[in-house]
């Protein structure tokens, strides 16, 4: 009687669980996390913020810190989840997104990247002040042109990287997690059972 009772419980629970699995597989696999991604283009830093289900983090606070932790500037993302600013200081930047309700993410830009961008903008400024009537292209100008076109060409790749950054959990991880839970169940049953056996042995003695 007891045994039958247990097996029906198990059957029912499995049924319930499978139905949930079916519901969930029919929906796109989505996650719940917020992500900020930032890259340097010329002398401007662009950021893009989104939840990992692809929804943009609109009107969220973005804070920019230098490596000592002092706040350089702050702003809000627009309705595409984007926020851009001119490089405020030639140092490694830490960009913090605060999407509210306890959702927070950060992105670091290393000093080398900023320095590079900074040197370009300085060249640009120097170039502007010098006489524009110059038939041949100087080394700096060529470099600048290459940088510009590279930035432009690389933009779609950077976009692709942001997309891949925000991928939700894969089916492997989901099934794996469920497997862990059932493994833990086995461990729990084992220990409960051992305690019960020990008590039974004691009672017999």
């Amino acid at each position, binding site marked *: 009687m007891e045994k039958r*009772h*247990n097996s*029906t*419980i*198990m059957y*029912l*629970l*499995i049924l*319930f*669980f499978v139905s*949930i*699995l079916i*519901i*969930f597989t029919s*929906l*796109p*696999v*989505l*996650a*719940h*996390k*917020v992500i900020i991604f930032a890259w340097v283009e010329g002398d401007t830093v662009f950021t893009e913020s989104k*939840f990992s*289900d692809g*929804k943009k983090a609109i009107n969220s606070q973005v804070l920019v810190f230098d490596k000592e932790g002092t706040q350089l500037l702050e702003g809000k993302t627009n309705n595409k989840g984007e926020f851009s600013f001119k490089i405020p200081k030639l140092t490694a930047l830490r960009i913090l997104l605060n999407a*509210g*309700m*306890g*959702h*927070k*993410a950060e992105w670091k830009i290393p000093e080398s990247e900023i320095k590079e961008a900074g040197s370009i903008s300085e060249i640009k400024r120097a170039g502007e002040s010098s006489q524009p009537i110059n038939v041949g292209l100087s080394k700096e100008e060529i470099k600048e042109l290459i940088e510009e076109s590279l930035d432009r060409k690389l933009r779609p790749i950077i976009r692709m990287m942001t997309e891949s950054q925000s991928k*939700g*959990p894969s089916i492997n*991880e*989901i099934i*794996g*997690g*469920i497997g*862990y*839970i*059932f493994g*833990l*169940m086995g461990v*729990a*049953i084992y220990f*409960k*059972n051992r305690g*019960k056996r020990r008590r039974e042995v004691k009672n017999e003695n």
Partner: protein
Amino acid sequence: MHISEGVLSAPVLITGAALAAVGISVGLKKMDYEKIPQVAVLSSAFFVASLIHVPIGPSSVHLILNGINGLLLGWMCFPSILVALALQAILFQFGGITVLGINTMNMALPGVICYYLFSRLVNRERGLISLAAAFSCGLLSVFFSGILVALSLLFTEQSFMSVAKLIVVAHLPIMIIEGIITLFCVAFLHRVKPELLGGIYGKTT
């Protein structure tokens, strides 16, 4: 509703973890041999539920299922939710390890509260009253979770009322959906496996 890592200050984290530890130890004490599989199944349901997003409303929200967890497990929903949240943190990077305590607290305590509020009505009554109680159980557990999240953000976000309002409004569709899910689960269990719900049905058999 997972709070990310690095949002909360240490005292809040420690308080949350301590309260969660109390709940977990009570839950483990109450967990007997026959309940273990049920805890595991509801834990996996909770684990998977966070991947089901509801694309209604202003923010990124997902199913929680803490109502049905609490209703069927009582205090045992603490260990159930802890395991699910730990795996979500490890595999999906939802929440995090340091915020595990407070997140468990925020999700499981409403479950326990709803267990005490509604399990009698769900179990003892028949027909409409039972179903209405099940619906309110699913709805209110999400509502209480929202309030608890707002409370834990109290020390970082300043204004409690605005955060609470934001969270509750964002989760309104989820509340209704969870209410309906809980209602259907209870209706299904009443018909097929009333022993799981305890109460008069369980005792007479």
